[in-house]
């Protein structure tokens, strides 16, 4: 790829695709507190990383159609929500994801009749994490499916992974979504800790992670199994390249 605009992006929250209602994503922030630890033998500052944090904030147009932004956001639930920003909908594209709290649902009705909302989402415990999409935007499976893989190059990583799932619609009894890896893009195996909880309805959402010393091999994909006739979902995959603070 090259330098890009944000045209063709998607935005998902709590198992709702509100891409068509989001006017702008005003803040996609991964940030950390820096802690000073200057010794008396130094003539300049010394610093280390402190707590992780982040933010996904956006503006939205008002839309009270079924499963659009008003349905998705009006409840201001107290529980954590998975929020994902997809940079385009090509498999393997960058995704910024967090699990955390929707802070507000604010509206401005202007003199000119416009109606524009502002929503802030702040993470709970894991900060905002950049990963890659294991689905081309939203993926629709009509039965058990082995998805296409993404290739991370020839070197395995040794620091585990995290993944985010949102399920937008579901017809059936249950679906199991798993992340698998492979060394040769032929023989895949389940990643220990890379299986989401069984889903029996939509909307649904979850964040999972493996142990932070797990080996993740070159090729990664997401598969579905279970008893269903239709599931629409999206997955972001975060492959840790270095030791991550717990």
């Amino acid at each position: 790829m090259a330098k890009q605009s944000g045209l063709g992006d998607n935005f998902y929250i709590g198992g709702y695709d509100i891409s068509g209602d989001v006017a702008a994503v005003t803040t996609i922030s991964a940030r950390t507190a820096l802690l000073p630890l200057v010794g008396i033998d130094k003539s300049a500052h010394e610093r280390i990383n402190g707590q992780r944090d982040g933010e996904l904030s956006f503006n939205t147009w008002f839309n009270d159609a079924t499963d659009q932004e008003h349905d998705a956001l009006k409840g201001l639930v107290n529980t954590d929500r998975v929020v994902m920003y997809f940079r385009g909908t090509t498999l393997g594209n960058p995704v910024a994801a967090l699990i955390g709290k929707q802070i507000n649902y604010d509206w401005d009705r202007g003199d000119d009749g416009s109606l524009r909302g502002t929503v802030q989402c702040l993470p709970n415990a894991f900060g905002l994490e950049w990963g890659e999409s294991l689905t081309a935007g939203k993926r629709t499976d009509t039965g058990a499916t082995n998805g296409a893989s993404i290739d991370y190059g020839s070197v395995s990583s040794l620091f585990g992974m995290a993944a985010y799932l949102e399920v937008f619609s579901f017809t059936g009894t249950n679906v199991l979504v798993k992340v698998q890896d492979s060394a040769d893009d032929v023989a895949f195996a389940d990643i220990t800790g890379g299986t989401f909880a069984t889903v029996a309805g939509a909307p649904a959402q979850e964040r999972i992670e493996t142990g932070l010393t797990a080996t993740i091999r070159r090729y990664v994909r997401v598969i579905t199994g279970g008893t269903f006739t239709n599931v629409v979902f999206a997955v972001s995959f975060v492959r840790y390249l270095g030791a991550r603070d717990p």
Partner: protein
Amino acid sequence: MAKESGLGFSVTVDDSAGTGRNISNDIKNVSVRTPSGIQDITGLDKSAIERLVLLADGEVTLNGVFNDAANMSHAVFKDYRTLLAGQVGRTVALAHSGQTLSMEMVAENYDLTRADDGSLTWAVTLRLSDGTVPAWS
């Protein structure tokens, strides 16, 4: 030389594996700060301020356009907290007109904005991490 513009300025930042990546083409603008703390030590017998220079610092702020090509700005900053084992920061090397400034720094953020007009831009602020006084060479 004579007075110059900033055309041709280059910025190279280590990725999480400690390899320097020239991401100049992704950067729209850069600000470089190398301040020092100042202590007022004016004695009673003086009619003008006396000062001492205290701790030095370094801050680099980068603003750029999103690019997820291999070894460019997204690849460098998406895991900005990850440092090569044994390192206390990432090397940030600034060069212009044969002059260079290199500092070990930690990033405090990687912020993106996807605006109404479709543009996707990013901003990163890096701060000195290893206690070495910044010096141009």
